């Protein structure tokens, strides 16, 4: 507990030092505030435009959250299918790599054209970008079961579905969480990128990416900074939520969760 407090104090100290440095740079180099606003101006912008900031944040949170949730559901189903045979994996696995390598910026206009601007299009982009790590990690977990455990199940005349749901799937949960951890970060990036293209179908209905675009076109640099701050907060919250869920589901039996407690 004491150690955690020290860590926290250190982090806050670094943060304070950065703020001081920031303010010093402004004073020494006489940077105009439309290029770099002062920390105080950013804080004021957060305060003054809190409702619109919060609404942009919640829109992006919903879009990336929906995309992530859908990628978990679809990713696990695809992985269960992949686990059925080596042949299926060999044939279809290259396409998941394709999914990972296709530049999201390049297909965003296409999706906009097909789905229309708005929440659904952005969630779809977040979904596409988060899908590959879920599929890859879950498949790995499903197929890397020890041979003797499979033999044990066979000795008790286990059915195919018992093998899948009582052995392979629980065995894959730690790997699934590795995938979710990666996906949670990139789903937020995907949503914000998506919003730059397909942000809003109505005025005031856009998320963080849309608002960033708007603030930069209006040279509201202090608000732009506030939005970036909000995006960071969102990414962090996703990450910690996933960490917590991972700990909650795995700490009783899995080694990686055990290590997390010790650290």
């Amino acid at each position: 507990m004491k150690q955690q407090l020290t860590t926290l104090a250190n982090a806050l100290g670094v943060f304070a030092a950065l703020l001081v440095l920031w303010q010093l740079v402004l004073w020494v180099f006489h940077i105009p505030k439309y290029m770099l606003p002062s920390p105080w101006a950013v804080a004021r912008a957060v305060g003054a435009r809190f409702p619109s900031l919060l609404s942009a944040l919640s829109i992006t949170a919903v879009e990336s959250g929906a995309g992530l949730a859908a990628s978990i559901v679809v990713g696990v189903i695809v992985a269960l299918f992949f686990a059925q045979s080596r042949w299926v994996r060999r044939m279809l696995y290259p396409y998941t790599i394709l999914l990972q390598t296709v530049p999201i910026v390049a297909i965003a206009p296409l999706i906009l054209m097909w789905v229309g601007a708005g929440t659904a299009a952005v969630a779809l982009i977040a979904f596409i970008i988060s899908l590959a790590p879920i599929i890859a990690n879950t498949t790995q977990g499903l197929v890397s079961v020890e041979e003797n455990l499979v033999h044990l199940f066979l000795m008790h005349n286990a059915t195919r579905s018992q093998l899948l749901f009582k052995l392979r799937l629980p065995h894959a949960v730690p790997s699934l969480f590795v995938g979710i951890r990666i996906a949670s970060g990139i789903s937020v990036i995907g949503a914000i990128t998506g919003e730059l293209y397909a942000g809003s179908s109505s005025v005031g209905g856009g998320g963080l990416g849309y608002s960033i675009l708007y603030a930069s076109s209006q040279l509201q640099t202090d608000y732009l900074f506030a939005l970036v701050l909000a995006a960071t907060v969102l990414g962090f919250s996703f990450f910690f939520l996933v960490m917590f869920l991972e700990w909650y589901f795995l700490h009783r039996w899995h080694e990686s969760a055990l290590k997390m407690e010790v650290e």
Partner: protein
Amino acid sequence: MIELSGLTKRYGAGQTILESINLTISKGEFVSFIGPSGCGKSTALKLIAGLAVPTSGTISVEGMTPKNAREVISFIFQDATLLPWRTVKQNVGLGLELEGVESNRRKEKTSQLLELVGLQHMSDAYPRELSGGMKMRVSIARALATSPRLLLMDEPFAALDEMSRDRLNEQLLRLRDEQKWTAVFVTHSVAEAVFLSTRIVVLASNPGRIHTMLPIELPLPRTAALRDTPEFEACVMQVSHALRAALVQ
């Protein structure tokens, strides 16, 4: 109980693991396979369990093919093969659960088996909280929960220190006295084989084949004190001698 006739197993083109094994094991016997590494003793066990298919020859277990006989067989692996996400009692109940035994009966059987291996106080623990010896006891309890008539064991105590190994050997014999199953046991340890078995099959390698069969006529039931007797020593000497002869060949 078990009949192996002309049993041969080859992998790929040339490699012969087992060459025409003929062996009959009757009900109530405790037979150990011992031999140099690569003599196919684990393969023989997998063939009896139906986890591998022979290249030629036949196996019958109580007149059935190995796969059909699985209901009467339990297999204990070299590592404890516990499911880490299940508690001790859920692990013990696994076989019953897979075979569709209803939950009340499962609970009753599970707690009975945990008591038998002396682990009822750990029933809600997870495998990672157990020592190597305890894990193996859970594995044994799980194998016995389905009331097998034939127990196949593939070096189950190889990873344990000698103290826990001896203790588990004694416990295993006690369980056998109570439950009367037939056993086929694979081991590297001569002393272990002598202590447990009513018959030892010494295998030679390249290709794997039966070198000698030695009945162990030490009195039953056996206790820890047996290990200090001259008769036990004599049996160990005899088996070691046969094992050396098999190695030289």
